[in-house]
């Protein structure tokens, strides 16, 4: 057992958890469904692991189960990203007129971006 290596991996894990909590807690509730879907796609990173165990000289799980492993992970990655993108495309801010009337909430960026997105 390689303690030094394990310790450095644990360091990476712990730091990533803290970064995750920081970043995720800033996501507004309105985006919680796309967030969950986006993180879903991100854990599709097991696809890397799936390829590493499947595309070798002697796949331990045999060809059928190895294909299934890669299939599941690949479904997770591609499905996850596409559905997230589809959902996010639906979130549109208020039309320009009402922003002027009510005062911009998200500073000048809202106004600039809504130019293109005006329905």
């Amino acid at each position, binding site marked *: 057992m390689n303690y030094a290596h394990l310790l450095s991996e644990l360091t990476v894990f712990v730091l990533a958890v803290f970064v995750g909590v920081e970043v*995720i807690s800033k996501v507004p*509730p309105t985006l919680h469904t796309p967030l969950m879907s986006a993180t879903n796609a991100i854990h599709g990173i097991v696809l890397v692991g799936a390829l590493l165990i499947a595309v070798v000289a002697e796949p331990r799980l045999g060809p059928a189960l190895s294909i299934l492993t890669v299939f599941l992970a690949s479904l997770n990655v*591609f499905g996850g990203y596409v559905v997230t993108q589809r959902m996010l495309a639906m*979130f549109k801010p208020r039309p320009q007129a009402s922003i002027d009337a009510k005062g911009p909430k998200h500073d000048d960026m809202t106004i600039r971006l809504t130019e293109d997105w005006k329905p």
Partner: protein
Amino acid sequence: MDATSTSTTQLLIDAAYIVTGVCFIVGLRLMNTPLTARQGNIVSMIGMAIALVATGFQLDFAASWWIGAIGLGAGAAVGIYFARAVKMTAMPQMVAIFNGCGGGAAAMVASAEYLRLDPAHTVVPLDLSIASVLTAIIGSISFTGSAMAFLKLQELMTGRPIVYAGQQVVNALLLLVAIAGLVCVAIGYMPVTAFFASLGAAALLGVLFVLPIGGADMPVIISLLNSFTGLAAALTGFALGNDVLIIAGALVGASGTLLTLMMGKAMNRSVANVLFGAFGAVKKTAAGGSGSSLAADATVRESSVDEVATMLAGAEKVVVVPGYGMAVAQAQHSVRELADELERRGVEVKYAIHPVAGRMPGHMNVLLAEANVPYTALIDMEDINPEFPTTTVALVIGANDVTNPDARTNQSSPIYGMPILDVDKAEHAVVLKRSMKPGFAGIDNPLYALDNTTMLFGDAKASVDKLLSAVKAL
């Protein structure tokens, strides 16, 4: 390839993995506003692509390239097809099934890696064996649990809680088997058998622990399963010695855990309480006893479409309170049309979103966004509650428990302490409801008997459509 160039390749691959980790973090960071969220998702995709290309340099394509190609291609085709075809109302079950795929893949990767280390004949380092067996346990719980959640949400089986005597005992025993297997793997006693016994027990546990979870508790369970798969991915990273899996898994695990806690808070229940079904027990006593403050002789006032239409058209501010019933009736587009018509008449329209309305976190927001409601009109509970006293009409569409004033005042109510939307404080509350049947939790809602509340019975979509034409005719 000589030793130097091998290590150079490995260094480059590791460097690429760091870039991937950064892309994931930046991608999630950009999701802090709907304005940049799409770019965020694209950054995250780029990160994934970099990781896959880097991984390609580690693979032995000469041996079994076709295994990777078939799996990857078929997964991409099926995944993209369903991601494009799925209806927005079916999003919770879609997310559940993608989540399960990730968990299942993680469990299988861990199994393959463990077998590769040949535990039957050699001593596997403790950190690797424990990481593998934990991945197998958590990954398979996530896989079968998500599959169950999918079946429930897709209504291929009942969405009601399924309970039986000794349920907790059976679950505890299965957990015990999984842990015993883990110990055997760790000390090297019949390690291969123990490994797959753990995996099998965990898979069964995944099925059984979702059985007693009802539809209204799904936001908690979906979040929890999300965090499980994240954790499984991170553990796969430990088993394979791969940092990018550890980083990505940790991010997802943190996200899922945070959402789980938020959902629990929004229901004023601990996650343990949701999981171990204490709610069901409390519910029954409440329904039978004096739990409800709604008197037996309380009467509700039924209103007509024309009356409500007049009320809405003459209002200064209308707050729409959507719930799962709106999603079931597919009423979101009609609701938006009604809101548009009201806004044309100078009525201010907002939407009050309770964190656990619907079947997953943010479910209502996605449905309304699909119906072209600007996200700036979707207001969270804390921000909208102070506005109800100045609201002319609170229009409750298919929401029930999240509007129940008993949660505020009646200590014997099973939902006492749950934060609710204060629709009873509006000048008028109009409740669109199929019938007087209590909502999912089976609790009476005294809101319906209040003097300023009127009921409009019928299918949510039909009612809203009638309201729309009535308002237009005014």
